[in-house]
């Protein structure tokens, strides 16, 4: 791995410390995960998201969970997460709002042709508005086509970046800055849509359980490599738009899990289950 990220000797003294620590103590080539957070240089450290942002926390955990960050390309979309990606030390493409799964499909296919001997993980990370509303067409068709990509939704139950409109993922009755009378319809069950659309692996998780989140991200990416599309939904509440204190984000997640209005769940196809079992066996020797 070192030779993939080697600084030319003549320029070693002028390379910013950030890059040196990414090489010496970053997540590349090793086997870092969420339990190692705090001990290595992360892909994303500085970002302009709000204090207590659930999405920023989820993103941090997702990036730490990537099985192969040096060969991962993230496709993002407009929304709050798009403000963080410019600082992330991982290849990422910002696509037109809603187009992310179409862009990722083409990218994955092109990479398979260009690098037939290297596994390149293409991972979509986008908001609930981008995934469940404006890009739903592109998202579902990528599943119907069994594109070998992983789709991760950062579900903050609102159009947060534009000041608080309801999204398909907002709960019934949700009141937001620009939904003062409360939402009239229920939250869309995207995990079930994904499962019915033929995804090989589907999970709904939260940042309150980092190990579970990591397992879902890794399973989703492995399933996309070998069997078919995968979908992971991460509940990432927004203190700014839902008007709770920044230090209450995790409490918020837990209370929603407890009252059953956000259910952590997993759907695994037989083929994906066989794959996970095989990989477990290999790992346990």
């Amino acid at each position, binding site marked *: 791995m070192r030779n993939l990220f080697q600084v*030319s*000797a003549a320029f070693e003294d*002028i390379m*910013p410390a950030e890059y040196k620590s990414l090489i010496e103590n970053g997540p590349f080539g090793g086997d870092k995960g969420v339990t190692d957070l705090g001990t290595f240089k992360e892909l994303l450290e500085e970002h302009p998201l709000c204090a207590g942002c659930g999405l920023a926390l989820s993103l941090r955990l997702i990036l730490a969970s990537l099985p192969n960050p040096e060969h991962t390309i993230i496709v993002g979309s407009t929304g709050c997460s798009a403000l963080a990606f410019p600082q992330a030390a991982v290849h990422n493409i910002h696509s037109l709002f809603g187009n992310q799964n179409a862009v990722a499909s083409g990218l994955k296919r092109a990479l398979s042709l260009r690098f037939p001997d290297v596994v390149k993980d293409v991972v979509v990370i986008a908001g609930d508005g981008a995934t469940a509303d404006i890009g739903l067409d592109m998202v579902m068709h990528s599943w119907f086509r069994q594109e070998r990509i992983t789709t991760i939704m950062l579900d903050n139950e609102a159009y947060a970046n534009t000041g608080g409109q309801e999204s398909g993922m907002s709960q019934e009755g949700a009141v937001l800055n620009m939904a003062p009378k409360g939402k009239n319809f229920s939250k869309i069950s995207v995990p079930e849509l994904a499962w019915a659309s033929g995804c090989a692996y589907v999970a709904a998780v939260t940042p309150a359980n980092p190990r579970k989140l990591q397992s879902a991200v890794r399973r989703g990416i492995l399933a996309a490599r070998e069997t078919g599309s995968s979908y992971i939904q991460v509940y990432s509440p927004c203190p700014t738009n839902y008007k709770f204190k920044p230090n209450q984000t995790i409490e918020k997640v837990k209370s929603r899990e407890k009252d059953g209005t956000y259910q952590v769940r997993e759907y695994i196809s037989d083929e994906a289950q066989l794959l996970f079992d095989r990989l477990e066996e290999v790992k346990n020797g």
Partner: protein
Amino acid sequence: MLTKRYEVQKGPEGYLPPAAAMMGIVPSEPGTSLVEGQMVLQETAMEKVADALLQAKNPVFFPGPLILWAWKEGVEEKAQAIKELADAAGAKIIPMPDYRPKYPMINPEIEINPNHPNLTIWHNNIDVCLFVGVHCHYANIALKLIRGGTDCYTIALCAEAGHEDAMISLRDVGLDQIRQITEIVKKRKETQK
């Protein structure tokens, strides 16, 4: 209609300067270079590079990913040659390690970002800069932005077809050409003594 030939001069040209290509500047033929949009012999352009660097108050080299990272055979040697050129010309080096926009947070003292190169130029009062090892697309964007927002004189040493958005653009630059420029710089300094 263009009545006067466009000259690639130092700015500030203002918000949204045109790409030189839009103004009719085309890459130079092999063996030649561009100086302010005019095709000249490569040797002439090398002399101009030496002049610009030696006359500058604060010349700075901006090496990009293609030369900062030892990603293939031959890069280390080229990097060493660029460092020798910078040393000979008394130029500082500020790297452009990658192209992520890092907006709005960069430390202009230690890095340059292709998406807002003006920050590094303003902060460090750079009057002449030299691009090397920056992928074409990002070099052209950055060079254009520099012309738009600063009065910095730009030089590009390109291993491919050159950058018409730079004030001096050399194409097909390899180890030999870099060393040749270093020799010219050293000779100039001798005669100026």
